[in-house]
């Protein structure tokens, strides 16, 4: 921050901290800059820190919700294009305000709790579904210092948090006092815990190569030679397993059995309406964007661009430590992460509107009898490769 704070006035600095929040490599720390700014106004260090804390959280929460709006719009537009329709058109230019209108509608809808439902659990269920998903955004890095908390357990925290979700689904399924809801909740829980295992094994192979659970370290391990050092080339099988499992965890087609409308009406969300239903909806789409981001982080090099930024800066004769270059680098990092994530979201949408839904026994067969052995073999092969070629597969 020191480099920027000497060259820019304080107001611009505040804007900068919101716009970019941090910058890479050279260890520029916007948190320290923010604290220093507030302490310059005569606040204590602890208070300045406490004032800083909610800022990145709010920013990421906003990013997540805006990401959901964009994803919903994309989903509707892309699916329309695939079916040679037009899709949302009248709400805003190209229907861009349609998700907003949907959200508003859900917000003002009557909040119905069925008469024989368990009202406490019925209310708590959607919350338990949404909260872990939002918490998982803690560990998504958009740049070197550009994440809420670089906890050491990183990706493991996400796996742990995503295992809370089935409890919320079971809770809402049970509390609705409806056989379809209960079946949907049970299916969701079974599916979730079945696909968690190959998912964790695929992550483990990546973690083994980077020697760290931290998402920042995982990205840095892929940042050597631009696009060529991305994990997808070292872990193609792991990438596929992870992607399939993540889609199954998001309960999206072809794995949307818990909400299979032909069989279970709408599964665990049958009885829900208004904002509680919106929480489920929000949760599933935040989870989708989060999954895209995490696949980008684990396999597509996170914030690194296909051509290394350092190399480009050297080509243009700029020092990588110059404030302007650092700003550009940080922006490229954010754009790259989001771009990769949305590319994956696009593939998820493509997959959803292409594939038919699998049957429940096919789903469990696929998870336990195909993905799990393949993930184990992938882990074994990765370990062997790591031992034989430590230079390429992490030492």
């Amino acid at each position, binding site marked *: 921050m020191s480099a920027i704070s000497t060259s820019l006035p304080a107001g611009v600095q505040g804007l900068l901290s919101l716009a970019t929040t941090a910058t890479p490599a050279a260890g520029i720390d916007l948190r320290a800059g923010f604290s220093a700014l507030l302490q310059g106004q005569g606040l204590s260090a*602890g208070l300045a820190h406490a004032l800083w804390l909610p800022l990145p959280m709010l920013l990421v929460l906003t990013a997540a919700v805006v990401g959901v709006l964009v994803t919903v719009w994309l989903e509707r537009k892309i699916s329309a294009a695939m079916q040679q329709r037009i899709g949302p058109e009248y709400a805003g230019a190209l229907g861009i305000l349609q998700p907003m209108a949907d959200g508003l509608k859900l917000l003002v809808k009557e909040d119905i709790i069925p008469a024989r439902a368990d009202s406490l*659990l019925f209310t708590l269920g959607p919350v338990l579904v949404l909260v872990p998903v939002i918490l998982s955004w803690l560990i998504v890095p958009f740049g070197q210092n550009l994440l809420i908390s670089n906890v*050491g357990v990183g990706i493991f925290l996400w796996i*742990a948090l995503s*295992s*809370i979700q089935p409890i919320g689904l079971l809770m809402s399924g049970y509390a609705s006092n409806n056989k379809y809801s209960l079946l949907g909740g*049970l299916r969701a*829980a079974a599916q979730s815990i079945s696909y968690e295992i190959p998912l964790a094994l695929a992550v483990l192979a990546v973690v083994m190569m980077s020697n760290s659970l931290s998402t920042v370290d995982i990205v840095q391990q892929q940042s050597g030679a631009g696009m060529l050092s991305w994990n997808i080339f070292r872990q193609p099988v792991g990438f596929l397993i992870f992607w399939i499992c993540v889609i199954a965890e998001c309960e999206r087609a072809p794995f949307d059995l818990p909400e299979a409308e032909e069989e279970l009406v709408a599964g665990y969300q049958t009885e829900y309406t208004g904002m509680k239903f919106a929480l489920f909806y929000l949760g599933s789409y935040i989870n989708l964007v989060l999954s895209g981001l995490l696949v980008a982080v684990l396999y597509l090099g996170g914030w690194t661009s296909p051509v290394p930024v350092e190399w480009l800066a050297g080509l243009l004769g700029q020092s990588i430590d110059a404030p302007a270059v650092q700003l550009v680098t940080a922006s490229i990092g954010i754009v790259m992460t989001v771009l990769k994530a949305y590319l994956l979201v696009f593939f998820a949408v493509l997959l959803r509107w292409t594939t038919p839904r699998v049957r429940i026994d096919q789903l469990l067969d696929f998870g336990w009898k195909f993905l799990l052995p393949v993930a184990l073999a992938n882990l074994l092969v990765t370990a062997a490769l790591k031992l034989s070629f430590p230079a390429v597969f992490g030492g």
Partner: protein
Amino acid sequence: MTIAVSTQLICFLALSATLLIGALGVVLLPNIVYAAFLLGGVFLSMAGLYLLLNASFVAAAQVLIYVGAVNVLILFAIMLVNKREPLRDMPGLLLRRLLSAAVCAGLLALLLRVALTMPWPTPGPASIGEGAVVRIAEHFFSDYLLPFELASVLLLMAMIGAIVLARRDVMNVDVVTGEPADQGLLEKARTPLLLSKDNPRP
């Protein structure tokens, strides 16, 4: 007292309170589903306590194993059985309750005595924070190798046992008619849907 310390204290108190109330609810509530959900809450607040102790890996493992697997399986079992009614009166319920209360009180007294008489080294060893993963792994593969491996053998045994219990015997002949039985439904074998030269109608 700095903000950090007071925040930590408040978090500790809140987590302990939820843990105690949740644990009491698990034991005392007549509705078994509520008890199971509260158990999840207890596990979660325990993970929070681990987090306060700077043991983030243990906390995440606690959430993954206890909340994500154990508690979900408990809930799963309860909901598959789906008994909504509370415990019915059975003969000698009061006696049973008194007995279990006495046992629990004895255990509590024992634990309290240990906790109070034990010369706790305060402050304990410094938290190693992020190095915990490495330290745990080292212990697993050196001095705790045998329990670690035994645990995995136990899990394997449980898995095989479950398969043996759940697997239905495949009958090759129909018991009544003596004809070869159609395994299509039982074993999910591929019964051809379309007739062709290769598989004429049996």
